[in-house]
């Protein structure tokens, strides 16, 4: 049964009732990210999601749109959401394409496509939930896992340097890059609001808590404890500029990394066909 009353939470109109209650674990941050996205869409004036197509790969974050959003969704193979999204975007400039993915999906198996999509300045928005581990598959080390963290595949602590994904995407040429955490929900929502209408590739990294799989490995098995950790360790990008690398170890740099006006791939393709560039 679909209830649409004024008393309901604003997000209900964007959600598939049959997908509720969500299967996300207690204390998971993905609900916060879904909430921020829907709030951003709502504030941008989208009364429903019919103009959107959501593409996702494999992992918990892929489940934010599919099955939760009442929208067209394409749930693809692991790491390949961006490739399917690109094919769709090229032939349907009328649609807004948004990719949801986790750090494992987008920066391990799918990293090449993330790099190439940023380089192409492909016209779509990526929301990357970074929980610093493979949560859904049992807590294996990810390219984003901080040094020293014990995971199921690094029982003596991770010995690999983690990837700074937002800095990488910025270096590859995206139009918009921002990183916030689920503690910074209002800022996260504002970043998504800026990302969605942006021409070119817009990337929002949401550092998020996975208390069940990651948190318990660092002694914080409650969502709230992890949010406190984010609050205490987040450094605004403006402040980080004047800090030494050693001081920034274990910190989460938050804020806008890139916000520029730059022609996206669609405009570049139109121009290459000899069509007049429209400003």
């Amino acid at each position, binding site marked *: 049964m679909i209830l649409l009353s004024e008393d309901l939470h604003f997000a209900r109109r964007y959600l598939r009732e049959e997908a509720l209650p969500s299967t996300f674990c207690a204390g998971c941050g993905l609900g916060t990210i879904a909430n921020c996205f829907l709030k951003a869409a709502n504030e941008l004036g989208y009364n429903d999601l019919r103009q959107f*197509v959501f593409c996702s790969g494999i992992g918990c974050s892929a489940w934010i749109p599919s*099955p939760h959003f009442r929208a*067209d*969704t*394409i*749930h693809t193979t692991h790491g390949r959401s961006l490739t399917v999204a690109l094919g769709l975007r*090229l*032939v349907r400039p009328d649609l807004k394409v948004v990719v949801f993915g986790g750090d494992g999906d987008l920066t391990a198996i799918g990293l*090449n496509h993330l790099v190439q999509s940023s380089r192409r300045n492909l016209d779509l928005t990526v929301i990357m939930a970074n929980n610093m581990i493979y949560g859904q598959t049992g807590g294996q080390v990810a390219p984003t896992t901080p040094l020293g963290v014990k995971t199921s595949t690094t029982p003596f602590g991770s010995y690999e340097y983690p990837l700074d994904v937002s800095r990488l995407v910025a270096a590859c040429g995206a139009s918009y890059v921002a990183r916030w955490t689920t503690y910074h929900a209002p800022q996260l929502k504002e970043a998504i609001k800026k990302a969605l209408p942006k021409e070119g590739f817009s990337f929002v990294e949401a550092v998020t808590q996975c208390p069940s799989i990651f948190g318990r490995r660092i002694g914080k098995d409650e969502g709230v404890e992890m949010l406190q950790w984010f609050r205490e360790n987040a450094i605004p990008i403006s402040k980080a500029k004047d800090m030494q690398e050693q001081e920034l170890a274990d910190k989460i740099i938050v804020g806008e990394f890139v916000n520029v006006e730059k022609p996206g791939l669609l405009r570049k393709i139109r121009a290459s066909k000899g069509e007049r560039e429209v400003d």
Partner: protein
Amino acid sequence: MPAVGGTFIQMEDEIASMGAVIGASWGGVKSMTATSGPGFSLMQENIGLAIMTETPCVVVDVQRVGPSTGQATKCAQGDIMQTRWGTHGDHEIIALAPNSVQEMFTLTVKAFNLSEEYRTPVILLSDEIVSHLRERIDVPGEVELVDRKEILHPPFFSSGNESPKGMPPLGKGLAVSVTGSTHDSAGIRATTSPEIHRKLVEGLAYKIQLDRDKITDFEATGMEENNIGVISFGCTSRAVYDAIELVAAKGIRVAHLRLRTIWPFPEKAVCQLADLVHRILIPEMNLGQLSLEVQRVVPDRTRVIPFNKIGGGIAFTPAEIASAIAGNLEK
């Protein structure tokens, strides 16, 4: 492509190409990609996604020597079984094998039509020799095309004997759920139900199996009671034509079945041939992949004679095949 209103993009790898083809198809256009053996291997996971999500698309595989890098740019016919079983799980596939430039044209059109009709990826299984040929072709003034049909109400996906005759469009408020996970006919994921999974996977198979005779296409010559039959496809069939003329001079008549459809396998035609002849010679540029399939379907597998040649991209000569025909008459 832009000149005819199309879009082309060179992706970073074949995994990405296959993904983009799937995305474009869901965008409502006809889409294709082309590769050779190694790239075809990379595409296999997303070909499975296209099968599972019932996404029409065409993949051209120009067969070359493998495994691995093998002998790059050299001809082979070793992707018969990769085409059939390259992606994991139970599934059917449609694969067409051209043997001329003209058929590269006609079978590409046919591949698109079949992909729309059955909502499935179709493989155009060419080989290096056919794909590097230069021949005159006739382009007909009008080409019969199967266009995308939109369906606006579920069922959107196959289940059991029911397969939708069309595809739900995106961007029209239908909230279409497309997923590579097991799903019901409305597209809603059902990853624990054995019943929904069985119905989906059987449905994906039935829609092709039930139309096997309609889909399969072949050229049959000399189909009368004979001592020997030959089954061929792709570049090898061109040498068979000449070999048949060579042995005809010695009074040997050959029943020749040249397959344009490799998958689904033309079982009926192969069995009809087996009823007519004592022996079936199968020349192919691999170690016997098609022979294996013929042996599977004919009543007496000992009458199937594999004739294999691999490496260097060196095709069969008509004389080699003629001598194999002559040499296997009395065994």
